[in-house]
Each structure stands twice: as structure tokens, then as C-alpha cells.
């Protein structure tokens, strides 16, 4: 019973929203800015790497007119984008869809960057280990030293280690 009520209210809201949008479109046709807002996120299917909002070809003008028409018919942005994808393929989107093999496009740079961070962290660690080992051996040399020449020897050893 409760579920049915929710479905009913939801359907009513959707219907009202649709009626509202159609009514609004009757009085206010889509502006250039509304068309461009969608066209900006689509790429010309013919001249590659050119966003649809600034593409000067006649074909692109027709596609922008198509967006205007669809907006006037009450289509949403995602519906219009999907329409273009269905017609011309995923290449019209400014980014590949997040599905199937296309995930590679998003995940590989992240994986490589993480690998870089890991390599850098390891490099820091190993360089630090060298320094610590060097320090320990110097401390040992200090403790073992008693004679007047030991300070000199310690310095020599330190220099030699750095050179090795």
C-alpha cells in the first residue's frame, strides 16, 4: 500500500514536471546559450577534436539546430547526448564512456602514477637506509676509538665511505 502511494506520488510529480516543461517551452524557445551548453560537451562527429559549439561547418550547424529542436520538444541534456551517441558513436562525447575497455583510459594513468609514488618511496627508503648504516658505522668507530689519531682515522673512514 505504502509502496503504491510512493509510486503514485512520484508519477504525478513526473507528469507535473513534464507538463511544466512543455508549457515553459511553448512560451520560451531554447536560447543559444542553452543549445551551446550541450553542444560544448559534444564533439563534432566529422571534424575531429572540435567541440560542436564552435564548429563552423554546415553539418555542425544542423546538429546544433537538432539540439535546439530536441530541447524544444522537452528532451533532457542526457537524452540528447545519448541520441547523438546512438547516432554517431561514443566519439561525439568529450570523454569516453566509463564502461568496458574504456576504463583503461581512466585507470592506467592512475596505476602508473601510483607506481611512480611507490618507486619514489622505495628510493627514499633505500637512500635513507644507506645514510643510517653509514651513521651507525661512524658511531661504532667513535666508541672504539681511544688514541689521539682516532679522530683523524674517523674522518678518513667517513670520506672513504662517501667515495665508495
Amino acid at each position, binding site marked *: 500500500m505504502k509502496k503504491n502511494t510512493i509510486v503514485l506520488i512520484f508519477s504525478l510529480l513526473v507528469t507535473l514536471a513534464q507538463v511544466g516543461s512543455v508549457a515553459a517551452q511553448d512560451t520560451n524557445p531554447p*536560447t*543559444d*546559450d542553452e543549445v*551551446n551548453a550541450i553542444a560544448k560537451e559534444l*564533439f563534432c562527429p566529422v571534424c*575531429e*577534436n*572540435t*567541440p560542436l559549439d*564552435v*564548429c*563552423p*561547418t554546415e553539418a*555542425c*550547424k544542423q546538429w*546544433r539546430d537538432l539540439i535546439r529542436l530536441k530541447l524544444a520538444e522537452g528532451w533532457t541534456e542526457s537524452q540528447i547526448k545519448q541520441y547523438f551517441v546512438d547516432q554517431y*558513436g*561514443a*566519439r*561525439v*562525447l*568529450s*570523454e*569516453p*564512456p566509463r564502461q*568496458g*575497455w*574504456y576504463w*583503461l*583510459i*581512466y585507470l*592506467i*594513468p592512475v596505476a*602508473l*602514477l601510483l607506481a*611512480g*609514488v611507490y618507486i*619514489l618511496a622505495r*628510493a*627514499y627508503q633505500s*637512500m*635513507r637506509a*644507506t*645514510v*643510517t648504516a*653509514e*651513521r651507525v658505522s*661512524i*658511531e661504532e668507530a667513535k666508541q672504539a676509538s681511544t688514541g689521539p689519531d682516532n679522530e683523524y682515522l674517523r674522518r678518513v673512514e667517513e*670520506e672513504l665511505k*662517501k*667515495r665508495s
Partner: protein
Amino acid sequence: MIADFGFGVLVITFLAALYSIGAALYGHFMKRQKWVESARLAMLLTFPLLTLASLTLIYLLVTGDFNIKFVYEVTSRDMPTYLKVTALWGGQSGSLLFWSWLMAAFATAVTLRKWERDREFLPWVIVVASLTIAFFLGLNIFFENPFARLWQTFNDIEAYTFRPANAVPFTAQDGRGLNPLLRHPGMIIHPPMLYLGFVSYVIPFAFAIAALITGRTDDRWIRLTRRWSLVAWLFLSLGLVLGGRWAYDVLGWGGYWGWDPVEIAAFMPWLTGTAFLHSVMIQEKRGMLKHWNMILVILTYALVLFGTFLTRSGVLSSVHAFAQSEIGPSFFIFIGATFVASIALLIYRWDSLKAEGQMHSMFSREALFLLNNLLFMGILVICFWGVISPLITELLTGQKVTVGPPYYERAAGPLFALLVFLMGIAPLSAWGHTAVKNITTQSGMELEKRYILAIARLMWKPAIPAVLVLVGLLAAGITNIYALIGLTFVALTASITFYEFWRAARARSRAQGENLFLALWRLAGRNRRRYGGYTIHLGVILMAIGIIGIEMFQTETQKSLAVGESIQLAGYTVRYDSLAQFPASDGRLVTRASVSIFKDGKFITELHPRYDVYSDGQPMTIPGVRSTLADDLYVLLVNWEGVTSQIAPFKVYHNPLVNWLWLGSFVFIFGTLIAAWPEPEREVVPAQTRKTKAVYQPGD
């Protein structure tokens, strides 16, 4: 006849380059210096020969010999002379010749003088430079001859170097003319700068390879090519900035950078080149990162070739795809072969490239430089993968996809922000190093703490202006989190950099009794690299302000206006006054609108956005722009929506702060010139001596 002469010169140059490779190898392996000298002279000969070939082609372009295919394709009678000359790099075959010409000029500059000092490197520098020249000349001779002529055969007109059987020469009445996008004053300098940047990176690569082959793996090759790397970087940076400005003026997108694959192709060697500029300092000061520097210079060379390959091979379509041909496979093989050979050499010499110094802290200057390199490499990976991945997924799925600006901006944006932050704190770590006097008595954590404290102690004063900027931005109602982070980092880095200038100048001023400006001038003169570097950082900061401004706060609107109507954007009112149409002297049909610009109701200026239609029907949209330091108002007459004398559609962009980008680039160039300005030659200090000194002293 002249064309045959030009082609003959190309063939002779190709043979001279091949000879110099052979003679250098023979001289080296047989230990006969005379052969190496002969190889050097043969390589030196390539420059005058290529000058002759290029001048021959320029002569044909300027005189309009439309029997030559290249001349027919890139010029027309109505083009002004300067554009006919610059048409040399306006098409594929001419630009390949131009590449070789510049390469020969640089190879000559390197080996003409002072080469005796490093005689052991010479044969291999000759081999690498001549091989690169020979490869590009080979492309010209075997695939893309700029001197090929048009021939009328039985049923067609075709281009051949030599006359085919039963064919007669064909001369067109007029040429097709240069692509309108390229008929812009920017065209005079943008491609040459980019090409100069590309070819000059061949020099550090040649010395690196020479060092690997000869086994002289100390930092001598880096010291010899330090200025070359800076000059290459300067040219590449200039090429990128000029390309951005050209796009802003001509492409009618309201922006300067569209993450087009060819833009990225030029940007990638810049990324590795910038990382290289930083990491070589660590090798010079501390004898570390030797493997990494080799990898960076090898990568830069490969990316230079890859950039030319992308532009020239037609493998990717883009706005620059005016140059497509079948030279792709040769490029691919050459890039692959040189890359594999270089990496093999590096692996062969791996053990002799061990680090001499050690890293004491994650917050030492060298550690922060490594982090800087990681960030540059991260951006490189994003760019490289963004260009390549659509080709790979197309192979896997059979469907093309576009990897557009949102991908790059989202992925690279945070890394750029971190780089700006690092640019601020890394120079402080050099001073922080001085705080660690008694290194042997501290444990690892204590040491890290001291490094951090040393940086924090120097940072707190310059951090105050950055905090004030953040408060100011919040008070101004800016809520865009990315803009807030970006501008705060920019303010912090700017403040630290100025503080560093001031601290050093004040110290010198007190010690020497000079006034602050004189002290600063002398300080910069004595340590050009450091203060040139800081100036470059200031340039980058200004550019970052411009980029944040246009990327985060750009607004736009479009509307069709009748005469007298207006549109509003960001406090500006643009009123359409009139439209005029007239032919220009070079055959263009110009359609020009007059619009009045008002701010808060007050008239400011009149702009004239226009579009030109060339005789071959190609249009070009030129914006009317009102520029100030605060913003640009960029008005386009949107010819693609149909313009009549009654109603004209206008697109208006409001680009806040964008001029800081161009302003920053001047500071940037000035800084690079300071850093690259020749200093009196000093005696070369052996690496071992420097190393022992450097352990307890601050990095420079």
C-alpha cells in the same frame, strides 16, 4: 631546372650526412683522428648545403612557380611575400626540409668551435646529429620531395621528381594558397620557435649518447650541454606560448589551449625537458640521479621525434591535420630504433652511473626535486596516454572515442597545483639544509624534523600574505574550491619567491653597503642560474594566475542581434551598431561588424569582430577583443550561424585575468635569458672534490 638543382642539393646533403656517420665511426674504431675530422667537416657542410636547398625552395615559393607541387599547394598569387616565405613550413615536405636545416645549423654551432676540448665525445655527437639529419633528409628524398613537379600524363596530373614517360610539365594558373588559419603573423614565429626547441634538444641527447658510449659517465656531458638544454627549453616554451596566443587570436574558441593531440605532442617534450632542467642540478651538485637524467634526455629526444611524427604522419586527426602523408611507418621505425638503442646503451652502462651522494631527508632539496620530477612525469603519463589510448581502444573495440579537455583538466589539474606549491617550498629547502650541521649525531626522525622546521621557519613570514589572499578571496565571495586552492598556492609561491629575492638582496646590501636594487642586480649577475630560475618561477606564477582566471571564471553568452540591440555579460553591454562587407587586396571577402562596448552603462570602446572568406571559400573568424589586466572581452561574429545585414549572431566571452598569462610569458622568457646568459668560463672542478664539499653544504 631550378627544382632539379634543389633536389640535387638535397641528395648531396643526404650523402654528406651519411658519409659523416661512416667516417666518424671508422675514425673512432680505427683510432684515426683524420677521419673524425673529415666527418666533422662533412657535417659542417650540411648547413650551407641545406641553406642553399631552402633558399632555392623559398625562391620558387616567392616567384610562384606553380609547376612545383609544394608551391602550388601552399601559395597563391594573392598572398603577401612574407607569407610566401613562411609557407616554407606551411606544408609537409617544406617543413621537413626546414627541420633538417635548423638541425644542421645547431649541429654546426656545436662542432664549429671549442670541440677540441672534448675530442672523445666528437665522433658520437657527429653520428647522432648526422643520423637525425640524414633521417629527415631521407623522408624528403624518398617520400616527400618539396621539389617534385606536376606532370600532365595521359589522363591525369601527378607529381613526380623526374619526368614520367609520355608526360609533359603542367603549370597551374594559380596555387591553392596557404590554409587561412596559417595566414597570420603568428605563423612567422610559432612554428620556427617550436622547431628550434625540438632540434636543439637533439644536442643534449647527442652528448648523452656520446657519454654512454665512451663510458665518460661523470657530469661532463651535462655541463657541456647545460646552456643548450636551457636554449632548447626557451624555444620550446616560446613556441608553446606563441601557439597559444595564435589560437586565441585566430581559432575563435575564446581560449588558448584545447588539449588538441598536436598541442600535447609539443607539450610532452617540454614536460620531460623541464624535469631534466631541474634534475641535472642534483647531478651537478650531489652526483646523484645519473640514470634518471639519462632516461629524461632519451625520453625528450624520443618525444621530440614523436611530436613531429604526430604532426606529420597523419596518425591522429586534429586541427593541425593539414599535413598527412605516408611517412608514418618510417617515423615509427626510427623512433623505435633510436629509443631501443639508447635504452640498451643505458643498461650497458648502468653500473658506472651509480650515485655518488646520498639523500639525507625526504625534505631536502634533492628529495623535493625528485618529487617535482614525479609530478612532471605524472602529467606526461596523462598526456601520452590521453593521445595514445583512443588508438588502443579503437583496436580493441573497433569504435573511435574522443579524449577531450575534461580528462586532461581533471587528471593534470591537481598535479599542476602541487607543482606550483613545490615551486614555492623547494627553494627554501636549500636554506633548510644549512640547519643540519651535525648530521652524524641525529636519528632519522630528528633529521626530518629539523628539515621541516628549517623550511617552516623560513616559510611563516611569506605565508602571511598567502593567508591574507585566501581571506580576501573568501571575502570577495569566491567559493570555487579549486580556484581558492590554486590562487592560495600561487600567492604563497609568489610571496616566498619575492621573500627570497629580498632576503638575499638585503644581506648583500648590508654586507657591501650597496642599495637594495644594486645589490639585487649584482646578486643576480653573480648567480644567474639561481636568480634566473626564480624569475622563471615568477613568470610561471603570473601565467598560473591567467590560467586559473580563464579556466575557472570564464563566462560566455550568444545571441542573434538586430542593429541597435545588445547583450549583457559580466557587467558589460555589447551593442550591435552596423555591418560592412568589402573585398580586401588579397582577395578575401571581409564581413566586419561594429559593436559598442559599455561597462556599467558607460561607453568604453568600439570593437570590430569579423570573418574573412578566402577566394577558395575557406572562412576565418577574427574576434574583436578589449584587453585589460583584469579581463578580456572577446566578441565573435558567429558567421557559422548565418549573418545578414539585419540580424547578426554574436558570441561574447568574458575571460578574467587572461592577460597575466601573456605577461607571465614575458617574465618567463626574461628569466630564461638571465639563466642562460653566458658566464665567464671557470675551471672545471673534478666531481670527487665537489662531492665531498657538497655533503654538508646547502644545494645551490
